[in-house]
């Protein structure tokens, strides 16, 4: 039953062929049996899951079940879960039992989903390989010598290995799309402000956005219907009515105008990835779309702008970890400054400290205009570049990542080379646009994701394109044999 999509499982629950308790137990057993090879979970919440599953079955018997009632999912360990550890992949929060639920968790609980556990991630979502986690690296189920991508690497790996039908993720510079690409699953980063950030541990607040990680676009649409919507507890939540994300899935792609930025297809892109992407785009052309070359001239400015803005916001957000109110505190502090400094240096890992230091530097007196204001101006240039492109085309397509993946340890000692692996995803966060990664084929035995970028609020259209592509192909149904036979 673990190869079924969320939509198929929902039908089985609804027909009575399966109970939520049976389904939940099946996934919990798989996690216990197979996850030691992947390390995709930080916490497995058996007791919570089985309690929720029992309640879901009762709710169904009472006739008040919705499409997600009784469906087990996993939450990235960045979403606060009341009464359970929420670590953000950090030693700093290893002892943090959240006193409340994140809005995303609360909304999904209300829809009736079951929490199987909390997934592994790069520490405070800072990373593209899941190697910066305090709980150890996650392995890619397609080849356990390879990284699953990051920062939502645990969520991507557990869905790819069918240890959960779906998972939540967050995306600050590609953290949903890049691991979705590397693990061969579907991931959606919505328009900035669509899903509440309340209770989602902050990295870079003007870029962070939650989204679903699933087998199919149809599953992602179903989760979006439960996750999205205005929340007064998030000061940047968009006060507009959420669309019906499943409403346009079956529309035709006739007349769709696709733009291919020439900057996404030049040197630096792996030849095998390029071939997969070109074949996938031809397939979509065959469904009625037209293709034209466009130019996004600011492409190369995105990574530098991001590595000013994201660390600046992170240094501010992470100043709350002071060893006083919650989280890690050093032993025997001699004075208040010693308490702050040692709690922070012992509690944070190397990459997090690096980014806090960069952030403190670019915000410091004398450098603020040269770095931070310059990066914010560049950010507007990047957004204007997309706005211009969207007067000519409806959707922009290209690779999600420049290669199908890299080996564990390969880039761990070279932060800049790691940063550049996010070259195609980062600009989307700076501009606040919605984008997806969809399984599009394989190269050298590893999956490759096709990235689709849309105008603000065009998620229903992106999900429609992805769904039509998945009706015509079966890349999203391929599973890593070692975990799914």
């Amino acid at each position, binding site marked *: 039953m673990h190869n079924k999509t969320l939509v198929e499982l929902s039908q089985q629950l609804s027909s009575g062929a399966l109970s939520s308790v049976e389904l939940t137990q099946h996934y919990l057993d798989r996690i216990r049996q197979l996850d030691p090879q992947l390390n995709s979970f930080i916490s497995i919440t058996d007791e919570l899951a089985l309690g929720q599953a029992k309640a879901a079955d009762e709710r169904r018997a009472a006739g008040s079940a919705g499409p997600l009632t009784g469906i087990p999912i996993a939450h990235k360990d960045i979403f606060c879960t009341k009464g359970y550890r929420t670590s953000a992949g950090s030693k700093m929060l290893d002892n943090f039992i959240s006193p409340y639920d994140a809005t995303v968790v609360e909304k999904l609980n209300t829809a009736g989903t079951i929490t199987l556990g909390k997934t592994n991630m790069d520490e405070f979502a800072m990373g593209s390989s899941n190697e910066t986690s305090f709980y150890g690296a996650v392995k890619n189920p397609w080849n356990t010598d390879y990284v699953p991508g990051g920062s939502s690497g645990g969520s991507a790996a557990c869905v790819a290995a069918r240890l959960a039908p779906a998972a939540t993720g967050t995306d600050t510079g590609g953290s949903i799309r890049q691991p979705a690409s590397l693990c061969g699953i579907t991931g959606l980063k919505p328009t900035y402000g669509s899903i509440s950030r309340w209770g989602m541990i902050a990295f870079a607040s003007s870029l962070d956005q939650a989204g679903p990680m699933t087998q199919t676009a149809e599953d992602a649409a179903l989760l979006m219907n439960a996750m999205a919507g205005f929340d007064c507890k998030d000061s940047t939540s968009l006060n507009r009515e959420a669309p019906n994300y499943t409403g346009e899935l079956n529309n035709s792609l006739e007349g769709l105008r696709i733009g291919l930025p020439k900057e996404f297809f030049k040197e630096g892109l792996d030849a095998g990835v390029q071939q997969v992407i070109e074949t996938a785009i031809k397939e979509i052309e065959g469904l009625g779309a037209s293709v034209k070359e466009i130019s996004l001239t600011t492409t190369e400015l995105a990574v530098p702008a991001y590595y000013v803005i994201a660390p600046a916001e992170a240094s501010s957000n992470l100043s709350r970890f002071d060893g006083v109110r919650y989280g890690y505190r050093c032993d025997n502090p001699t004075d208040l400054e010693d308490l702050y400094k040692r709690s922070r240096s012992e509690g944070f890992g190397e990459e997090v400290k690096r980014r*806090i230091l960069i952030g403190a530097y670019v915000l410091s007196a004398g450098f603020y205009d040269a770095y931070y204001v310059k990066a914010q101006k560049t950010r507007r240039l990047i957004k204007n570049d997309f706005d211009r492109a969207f007067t000519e085309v409806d959707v922009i397509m290209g690779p999600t990542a420049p290669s199908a993946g890299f080996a564990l340890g390969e880039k761990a000692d070279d*932060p800049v080379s790691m940063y550049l692996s996010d070259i195609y995803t980062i600009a989307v966060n700076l*501009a606040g646009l919605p984008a997806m990664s969809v399984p599009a084929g394989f190269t050298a035995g590893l999956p490759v994701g096709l990235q689709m970028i849309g105008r603000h609020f065009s998620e229903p259209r992106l999900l429609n394109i992805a769904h039509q592509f998945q009706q015509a192909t079966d890349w999203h149904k391929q599973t890593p044999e070692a975990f799914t036979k």
Partner: protein
Amino acid sequence: MALDKSEVKDIAHLARIAIDEDKIPEYASSLSSILDLVEQLQSADTDNIEPMAHPLDATQRLREDAVTESNHREEYQSIAPATEDGLYLVPKVID
């Protein structure tokens, strides 16, 4: 853009992070390579461009000045490293 050891120490103090003396050269080198990457921004022509803080240029929402939160002090302090009589404890600041 190369940072020297004393600059790394100054930034670490600003960020309230302690760095071991023997690790400072390593930080100086990795932070400098990140700043080299960031340096590419200088090639962007940003004359007459307004800085962008929010992707949709939204501004802070205001609400009625009314009490909306209930008191969770005991719950929140139950996960604190050290508390007494409803207060958070830190090392002595004033003699």
